[in-house]
């Protein structure tokens, strides 16, 4: 069995894919992953997920090229800057 290993570096952080472990069962995967990904104190927690349990999506339908759904070319940075300036120039009394 192949187990995908997800590692959390510190409490509260998201789990990130760290690699995979090939093991005959969950007990071996536990013992091996513990040493492979935790022996140096580098992990707060691990998730071991049998690869078969991962539901993967790689096919995407975008037949009509719906560009307006995307943000390409739309500079949020400059608009954000403008908005901030406006907010800064507006005094509480004016509101």
């Amino acid at each position, binding site marked *: 069995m192949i187990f995908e290993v997800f590692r959390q570096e510190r409490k509260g952080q998201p789990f990130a894919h760290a690699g995979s472990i*090939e093991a005959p069962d969950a007990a*071996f995967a536990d*013992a*091996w992953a*513990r*040493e*492979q990904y935790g022996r140096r104190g580098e992990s707060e927690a691990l998730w071991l997920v049998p690869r078969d349990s991962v539901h993967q999506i790689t096919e995407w339908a975008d037949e009509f090229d719906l560009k307006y759904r995307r943000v390409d070319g739309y500079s949020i940075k400059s608009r954000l800057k403008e908005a901030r300036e406006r907010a800064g120039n507006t005094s509480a009394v004016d509101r």
Partner: protein
Amino acid sequence: MNARATLLLSIADDELILGWRDSEWTGIAPTLEEDVAFSSIAQNEIGHARALYELAAVELGSDADALAFDRPPEEYRCAPFVELRLMDWAHTIARRYLYEEADRVRLDALRRSDDTELAGLAAKIDREEVYHRMHAEMWAARLRDEPRFRAAVNELWPYALGVLEPQQRAELARRVGLSDESSQAVERGEHTPELTELWNEMTEVRRSVPGASW
């Protein structure tokens, strides 16, 4: 040497020599994952040895490195069980399994000891041993019906008995489902020729420049 120092050295020597023997698998264990796990466990055992040597060193006015490396092989207190060179996985796992079970019996007794320093260290060591036992027991469960593994366990059983004091052996027998009465334990005190070979290699660097600090 008093009884406390003798006891500390016996356990420390067991852990050091077994850690050394098991580390001989680094790079050649059956799978990459097992290689990492097995090597890490071997390192842990050497870490336990260090902590025990440090306690013994206070008692003996020495230091951990001197106790680990500067005694002649005949003064080591380890059981013959840990000295054997078993370059075969069935025997290696059989020894790991039997040793962990024996070590559990020994640590359980130490944790209940009136010697609070030793009891505290035993409890600390045991928190790591939980994972060593998990590793050993999963292998034992997997290989239980494998004739080579069964033969190895039976062959090593008299050696495993020698790790423990006579009064602790029935408990070990019960745990692993073997009889402590039909086998003559290979006792601590005599050494196998393998220990001298191991000692020569283990102390080679330290002996090359006596007194150097590393």
